[in-house]
């Protein structure tokens, strides 16, 4: 059962498994474990971007196609559905039409991109896609009558998916973070702390929307796991490793590469649709910006290229950092102000300087996880198991050099 679900592609590291399960549970029960709109929004983003980044990994990690146009397809989805809702009214047919249309567009454009990749290679391709994505953004800005230009446009979701559609009496959630914090700060009266930890969960259309996107992502992710462990996925690996040789073995690499680009783009489009419906307001900056494209790239690399699980870990870690680093720094500089010695350095750590430290983390994450978080964890796990094997089989050092009969 599990085996088929994961397509035999296990985390292969105890720590990683724990991490993944934590994330899964955290997202599944999220709305009932973390209070607050910001937390809710962050979870929504995580769910959406897990899908987007995983799709990106299909191209990047499994085929070494480096494209910065991924976000363009994301934009297709977001704007497609937003514009449909805008023109056809807030109903589900509009969503269907918008999604369908943008999927169609994505597939066509992706095919063209695949052809382009025939002629324009590697880093050139990467930078060209960057430029193409840029011109799409310019286009969106200039069609402001349709898209609202830089001001962006609100996504008039059907009532069922909006805050207005709500059950009368809210459900109850239990804020673990609040509780833990409480327990730490005043351990004496746990009872009160526990009471405070309970909070109301607004059982409205947005909660519904969250769970819809959660399920979509989950299903698609499992599908991708299967894909990369299928014969198709193996060929992708071959192309990544040595395209020339793959051809000599009889694989038409062109078709495979194009197929992947189309697939990834379609998935990104779906991601875009969900993004629009979850955040309910889109701007070029929040959907098409180059910076965002780089962030997706980072999530992918940080999590671990070529391991879909990396997308999960990468997206989660990154988005949490992006949304909470600032608060953390705020607290930090608060403390530093107390300490006269550090007070002078405090401005460097001020909440408004969060981007500085974000940049630093950005760089460090690439160094400390050369193979991504997942890759790193797996390596450690592998090393440990080798060591254990070593204990049994005595000196394992000769292993690579020794030649069995």
């Amino acid at each position: 059962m599990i085996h088929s679900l994961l397509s035999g592609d296990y985390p292969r590291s105890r720590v990683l498994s724990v991490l993944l399960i934590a994330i899964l549970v955290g997202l599944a029960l999220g709305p009932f474990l973390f209070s607050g709109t910001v937390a809710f929004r962050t979870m929504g983003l995580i769910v959406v971007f897990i899908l987007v980044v995983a799709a990106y990994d299909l191209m990047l990690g499994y085929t070494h196609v480096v494209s910065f146009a991924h976000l363009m397809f994301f934009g297709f989805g977001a704007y497609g559905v937003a514009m449909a809702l805008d023109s056809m009214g807030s109903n589900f047919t509009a969503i269907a039409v918008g999604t369908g249309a943008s999927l169609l567009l994505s597939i066509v454009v992706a095919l063209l991109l695949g052809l382009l990749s025939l002629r324009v290679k590697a880093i050139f391709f990467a930078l060209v896609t960057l430029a193409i994505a840029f011109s799409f953004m310019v286009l969106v800005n200039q069609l402001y009558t349709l898209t609202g230009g830089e001001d962006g446009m609100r996504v008039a979701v059907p009532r069922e998916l909006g805050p207005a559609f709500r059950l009368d009496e809210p459900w109850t959630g239990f804020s673990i973070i609040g509780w833990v914090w409480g327990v730490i700060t005043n351990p004496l009266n746990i009872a009160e702390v526990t009471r405070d930890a309970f909070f109301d969960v607004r059982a409205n259309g947005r909660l519904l929307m969250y769970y819809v996107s959660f399920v979509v992502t989950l299903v698609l992710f499992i599908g991708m796991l299967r894909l990369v462990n299928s014969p198709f996925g193996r060929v992708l690996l071959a192309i990544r490793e040595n395209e020339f040789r793959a051809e000599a073995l009889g694989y038409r690499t062109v078709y495979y590469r194009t197929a992947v680009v189309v697939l990834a783009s379609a998935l990104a489009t779906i991601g875009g649709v969900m993004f629009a419906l979850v955040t309910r307001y889109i701007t070029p900056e929040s959907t098409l910006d180059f910076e965002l494209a780089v962030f997706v790239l980072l999530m992918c690399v940080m999590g671990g290229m070529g391991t879909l699980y990396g997308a999960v870990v990468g997206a989660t870690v990154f988005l949490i950092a992006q949304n909470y680093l600032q608060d953390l720094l705020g607290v930090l500089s608060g403390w530093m102000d107390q300490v006269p010695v550090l007070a002078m350095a405090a401005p460097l750590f001020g909440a408004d300087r969060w981007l500085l430290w974000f940049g630093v983390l950005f760089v460090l994450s690439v160094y400390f996880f050369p193979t991504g978080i997942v890759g790193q964890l797996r390596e450690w796990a592998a090393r440990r198991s080798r060591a254990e094997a070593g204990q049994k089989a005595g000196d394992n050092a000769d292993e690579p050099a020794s030649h069995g009969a």
Partner: protein
Amino acid sequence: MASENPVIESRDLTIQFGGHVAVNQVSCAFYPGTLTSIVGPNGAGKTTWFNLISGQLRPTSGQVLLHGEDISRLPAPTRADKGLGRAFQLTNLFPNLTVLENTRLAVASRYNIGYNFWHMAARRQDITDRAMDYLRQVRLEHRADAIANGLPHGDQRKLEVGLLLALEPEVFMFDEPTAGMSVDEVPIILGLIADIKARQDKVVLLVEHKMDVVRSLSDRIVVLHNGELVADGEPAEVIASPVVQEAYLGVAQDETEQV
């Protein structure tokens, strides 16, 4: 054997790189069950000729015929599907995949399941098994789980040959398969090549510098020199021919004899 029609034929194949004509008007046909050695000094055009036949390069002029069909315009993969198999002179593997995975890829390409994305590759035990016997044939089974680029040079050469075997082509093209292989392992590879030849229905093309190997294995020797086909015939007579003597073996025969 000339009675049967050729499996693969090179008609006036010519390729020019800038000013330099690397392969010049080379015509030659190959028949099933034969092993032909292609010899010639370095830079004679042997590898380039192979590239023309297996489709890594497009000829400036001339054709490649497979069972009489002109395949000169087909891309390399299609030719591979049609049964042209190629092992490379400079080792050319999937560096970061395991030895086994390398071989599985070669085996799988015969099954045309590349576009299947709903099954689990790992569940195809049959493919794994076949991959394993090819590894056994090239004596690499004990390294099945090693990463390819961690292998010592000689073992990489063996894997290179293993991939070609796994491809089960109709035409085998070996480009100096034993180069840099330790003396005691050379016979293994030669044995494999001999077996293929023994099957009678395959065509084997072998680029090799080791004269004794050439002599012992081939039914026929083709000599390239400056991209031109300068001699073609029975091993004994070709090796005896003066052109080969000075152009290829050089004067100092005595030592090379044993090499």
